[in-house]
């Protein structure tokens, strides 16, 4: 299987390790991985800000960049959801583009669901001795049905104990530009999330979307909590030892 990695803009800028972890997991699953250089961002900031014209222009670039691959995989439910659910909607009234968008949508997957649902991966070889809790990022959960897949793979990590997070399905308050346009409301939401995370007593909190992770890590650090925050792919790929947790000193 020839798989194109859609790195996503946040992973590219903040946390390249997540990209390399995704490459390793995809290769372990038997995929040939390529990273098209013509990719940038999925265009969601423009789309959710009501700037449909720019969102379309960016979407067309993304569609071009990923022509010819069997699958397009992103370490983010939000960006994968954009490709899979929103691109076809964006071009609903433009038959030619719509068809191309739908064709890309059919090939686009969030990383953990791709590994489990398409590659039939059931276990990983990683080891990580931690008690962890898991936050379900909204787009992955509700647009793509990503919930059992990361948990199934995490259970195979040697030494890892998964403790469910009450309210795991409730938004952390990131919401893209929302968190800077309405900081007080976002603060209340991420403060509630922080309290729920702390109450589990877990050593680490994982999720599949870097936006949520930056938000939760930022709040946990501001509150002086010593809970590790990591992208699930880092742990599954056995790369958690290679970089400090998100927001921690190097």
């Amino acid at each position, binding site marked *: 299987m020839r798989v194109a990695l859609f790195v996503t803009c946040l992973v590219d800028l903040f946390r390249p390790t997540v990209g390399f972890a995704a490459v390793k997991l995809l290769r372990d699953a038997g995929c040939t991985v390529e990273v098209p250089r013509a990719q940038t961002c999925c265009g969601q900031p423009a789309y959710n800000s009501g700037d449909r014209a720019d969102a379309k222009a960016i979407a067309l670039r993304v569609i071009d960049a990923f022509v010819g691959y069997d699958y397009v995989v992103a370490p983010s439910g939000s960006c994968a959801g954009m490709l899979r659910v929103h691109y076809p909607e964006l071009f609903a009234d433009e038959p030619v583009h719509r068809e191309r968008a739908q064709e890309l949508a059919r090939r686009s997957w969030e990383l953990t669901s791709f590994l489990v649902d398409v590659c039939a991966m059931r276990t990983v070889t990683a080891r990580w001795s931690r008690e962890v809790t898991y936050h379900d990022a909204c787009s992955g959960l509700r647009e793509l049905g990503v919930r059992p897949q990361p948990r199934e793979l995490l259970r195979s990590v040697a030494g890892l104990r998964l403790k469910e997070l009450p309210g795991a399905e409730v938004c952390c308050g*990131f919401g893209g530009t929302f*968190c800077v346009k309405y900081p007080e409301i976002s603060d209340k939401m991420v403060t509630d999330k922080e309290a729920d995370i702390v109450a589990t007593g877990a050593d680490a909190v994982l999720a599949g979307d870097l936006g949520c992770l930056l938000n939760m890590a930022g709040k946990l650090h*501001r509150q002086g909590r010593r809970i590790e925050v990591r992208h699930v792919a880092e742990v599954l790929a056995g790369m958690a030892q290679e970089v400090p947790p998100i927001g921690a000193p190097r």
Partner: protein
Amino acid sequence: MLATSRNFKANARAGLADDNLQKALALARTGFPLRRSLAVERLPEFEALRESGRSIKDHVLAHLDFYLELYESRAVAAGGKVHWASTAQEACAAVLQICRSVGARTVTKGKSMVAEEVGLNDFLEANGITPVETDLGEYIIQLREEPPSHIIAPAIHLIKEQVAETFRAEHSALDPARPLVEPRQMCEEARAMLRPRFLAADVGITGANFLVAETGSSIIVTNEGNGDLTQTLPRVHIVMTSIEKVVPTLEDAVTLMRLLARSATGQEFSSYTTVSTGPRQPGDLDGPEQYHVVLLDNGRSALLGTDFQDMLRCIRCAACLNHCPVYAAVGGHAYGWVYPGPMGAVLTPSLIGIEEAGHLPNASTFCGRCESVCPVKIPLPKMMRHWREREYAQKLSPPVYRTGLSVWSWVARRPALYHAFAELASRVLGWAGRGRGRFRSLPLANGWTTVRDMPAPEGRSFHSLWAERQR
């Protein structure tokens, strides 16, 4: 009702700082979703029922003129009178004219969001008629001179101590030493105060959850039975409702009621369901002498055929409010008009304009929980996005924000340039944050760093590292 949606940010700040409100919301935030999910678990066909609900409403909206005319003819045949109102003013005027025709001095009211929408209470009072709210929550907020903060639980923003305080202040004829600690005591006190008002009222005004075209009936559901006393005891019953409440058949109404109660409160069915068809008929034991229906449009028909038509499927269950993390943070008053939460974020700009209500569809993370629990599958985030698109097209969003977005979009369409910027930003921020791994403050990122740290990047962009490793 006068809108303060423009002040959403300030309203929200006030809500976040209100300890009593936060206590009340903390209870609601977990209680409603839990009860709903238990009710849904007990009904295996719930998902299929949602699909039926959606298609019933879609069918009606595609043939709304037909069903409204059918409804009117059947309601008239049953002895009722239908008053069409294009605007809030017309609706209020119709109610006043009916009240005056029977010399009414006091009216009792069941809960009606449409009556809130048209500002009926203030209008009646200004015209010398005393409206008395009979739903417990509405009664409490009427005493406090507050608007409702929730569409099915109007006083949800209050804790019981505040209610006790209000009752002591307003029920001044009662023994000041009486105990008012348990909700039951307050409920009984309200009931005792309301009983003579029910008996004295000249006109009873209720809303309607559904209008049934085949029978010309209106249906209300309540948990307190106050609606029944409101509409049965006075000589005149006025139903105050809006045009999208019509459904073809009683069977359809029942399908929607099964969805409504579970989605709203987690009940299988509301405690009281009352079907009214015309005034008292010969041989009836009770019922009003006159039965009027005031049918409000107020901008709804203008939504037909637009991006917002699906919003007219709404059956006012409040599941979207109950599952919304933004509503749970700021409470209903922050939204500044009658309809709060996700349904309000779509409906309010439709009814009072995006210029006034622009914040509402923006103050959402698009987490999608509202859509996932909506009994008639209204794509609420999608429609909020449509509002953002209109706002953007009308250049109503802040210029700085628009310019930033344009520049970013321009760069995002030029991969070579984009990758160069990403590498530069990654290196600069990575270097600056190398010690602590995060920033407590960052230029141009105040919105982020006032409330949380900004984690520092690792120091190189993925694409640069990848390109190096490919060599």
